């Protein structure tokens, strides 16, 4: 598969009164054509900052891309001009936001909001844009699109509004769609509908999706590959099966163990102890070390490089170093790994 987007050694800082917050500290990932890449991690791990930087939508003034490249179609978006970015935004790369209740302009009709990118990037006239907008509303499953077109956001429910936001994002059939926790603000039944809709539309429009979430259940449902972020870095990346059934990083172990499953009965859910690192004073070693029961001396002193597990699977933990002692992952992870190895043997 062709690489569509390549992020290389990205560093982003925010300048605050307290000092420089190093929100992103060397992020690398690729996005292939037609795939869905999920970025998971807890609040403050840098998921949203990374994706906003791809569209260069970080707040101007106090944020800075310190170094690194964001290559899209051979062009480095990290240094592209504002003019150039305006041509890319909404046309080649577009975005769906977390809260549909606040992401639509309350004083503009739905129709106008959907037509805006069409008129802008596709040079359509008002009439053609309106026709296309009706088709889009129909595509995202909004009944009576002709009447709905003239209505305002407050006349729509949360789930319906998110469908409208999706229609806006897909209006120009973008190559990359960034979905920043698109189902977090919706209730569970609507979540399922929106996820199904996105999967369905991805096939129709042939777009690649970067899906940001902290819900591993959603990841299992939508993603082809998963990148786990922690403390401004990607700590583990692999296919969905690799991350769910053969995780290598202790942080991923923690995430997997804290997931409720159908087998788990009354036992209390696992909790990762401690709090995320303070990126105003980032730790010298592995950012996860203070919360990591498997941490070794070297974890506190030196940042681990990415160790290769398979062609698609990499993890940044010293446990993968040839000299590292063998450790037993948590029980829930061991069970999953056993299933994973059994299935590989079964394949052979």
């Amino acid at each position, binding site marked *: 598969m062709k690489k569509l987007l390549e992020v290389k050694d990205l560093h982003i800082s925010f300048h605050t009164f307290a000092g420089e917050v190093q929100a992103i500290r060397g992020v690398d990932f690729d996005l292939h054509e037609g795939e869905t890449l999920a970025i998971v991690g807890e609040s403050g791990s840098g998921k949203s900052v990374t994706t906003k930087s791809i*569209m260069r*939508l970080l707040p101007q*003034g106090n944020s800075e891309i310190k170094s690194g490249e964001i290559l899209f179609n051979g062009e480095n978006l990290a240094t592209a001009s*504002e003019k150039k970015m*305006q*041509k*890319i*935004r*909404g*046309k080649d790369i*577009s*975005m769906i*936001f*977390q*809260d549909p209740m*606040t*992401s*639509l*302009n*309350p*004083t*503009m*009709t739905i129709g106008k909001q959907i037509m*805006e*990118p069409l008129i*802008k*990037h596709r040079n359509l006239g008002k009439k053609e844009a309106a026709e296309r907008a009706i088709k889009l509303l129909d595509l995202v499953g909004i009944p009576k699109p002709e009447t709905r077109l003239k209505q*305002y956001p*407050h006349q729509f429910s949360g789930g319906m509004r998110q469908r409208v*936001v999706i229609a*806006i994002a897909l209006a120009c059939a973008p190559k990359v769609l960034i979905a920043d926790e698109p189902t977090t603000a919706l209730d569970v039944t609507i979540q399922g509908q929106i996820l199904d809709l996105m999967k369905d539309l991805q096939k129709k429009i042939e777009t690649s999706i970067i899906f940001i979430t902290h819900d591993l259940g959603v990841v299992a449902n939508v993603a082809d590959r998963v990148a786990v972020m922690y403390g401004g870095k990607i700590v583990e990346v692999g296919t969905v099966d690799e991350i769910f059934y053969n995780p290598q990083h202790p942080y991923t172990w923690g995430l997997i163990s804290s997931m409720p499953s159908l087998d788990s009965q009354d036992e209390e859910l696992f909790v990762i102890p401690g709090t995320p690192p303070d990126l105003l004073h980032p730790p010298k070693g592995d950012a996860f070390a203070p919360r990591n029961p498997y941490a070794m001396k070297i974890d506190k002193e030196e940042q681990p490089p990415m160790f290769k597990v398979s062609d698609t699977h990499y993890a940044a933990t010293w446990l993968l170093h040839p000299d590292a002692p063998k450790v037993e992952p948590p029980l829930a992870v061991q069970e999953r790994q056993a299933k994973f190895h059994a299935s590989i043997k079964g394949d052979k």
Partner: protein
Amino acid sequence: MAKYITKRIIYLIITLFIIASVTFFLMKFLPGTPFSNEERLTIEQREILNAKYGLDQPIPVQYMNYMVNIVKGDLGVSFQFENQPVMDLLMNRMGPSLQLGVQAMIIGTIIGVALGVLAAMFQNTWIDYGSTFLAILGKSIPSFVLAALLQYYIGVKLELLPVASWNSFSSSILPTIALACFPIATAARFMRTELIEVFGSDYITLAKAKGNSRGEVAVKHAIRNALIPLITVLGPMAVGLMTGSMVVEKVFAVPGIGEQFVKSIMTNDFPIIMGTTLFFAFLLTVIILIIDILYGIIDPRIRLNGGDK
């Protein structure tokens, strides 16, 4: 919409009735009569005057008479200006005050909103600081100081505009500037704060994510949303401006209503006080009605569908 406006007009009449009643009784509690300042009058002469104007009757009877006359459109006659009907006095004096008020309001809103938008769009640059500086000046310099400065430099030194007269449009320019400073400052500060908040909202990020430039985002998406709270502030300010600024009217020798109102309070000229109060109340309620209709035009969420939705 028509149903809603009818309903609002009925409310308006009730409001005016209550205001008229409260003002009437409050005035009756004031010490003295319109003629108590006239020391040369004998007791008999005063009684004759009281009887002439109906002031010797019991207060409830006076109240009834006054209310009936108001409904007929008769606001009574002035005590201080030799039997002139209050209505005529108000109409003569209201014109200049209204003209100044409307001019100051239009200029104040346009310049104020423009300054506020610029300040918000170029937040923390010299444009923002400059606009803030102007706004603080506009708010903190009293209008009479500004009026005197304008008269001296533009009127006397440069001889560009008349200093203090009331006969042509050009004589209204300086008082309008003096009056407009406060609305400019208020609108600019308000607009800046609101717009910065709007710029931080999700739908503005979405508007940027569609490929809009900064200017397009501001004009198409942000300003309309930031205007909604501004309208609330501008309404009462408009009334304040239209009902006259005594100081500015005095300094520029404008034959407006502000000066007359104060004079009538000093002399217990009941009919003028009542008439002016009612007129101000009427203006205020009408402007509030206009504002409510404006809200609906700007903000679809409070669009008025016959008042039943």
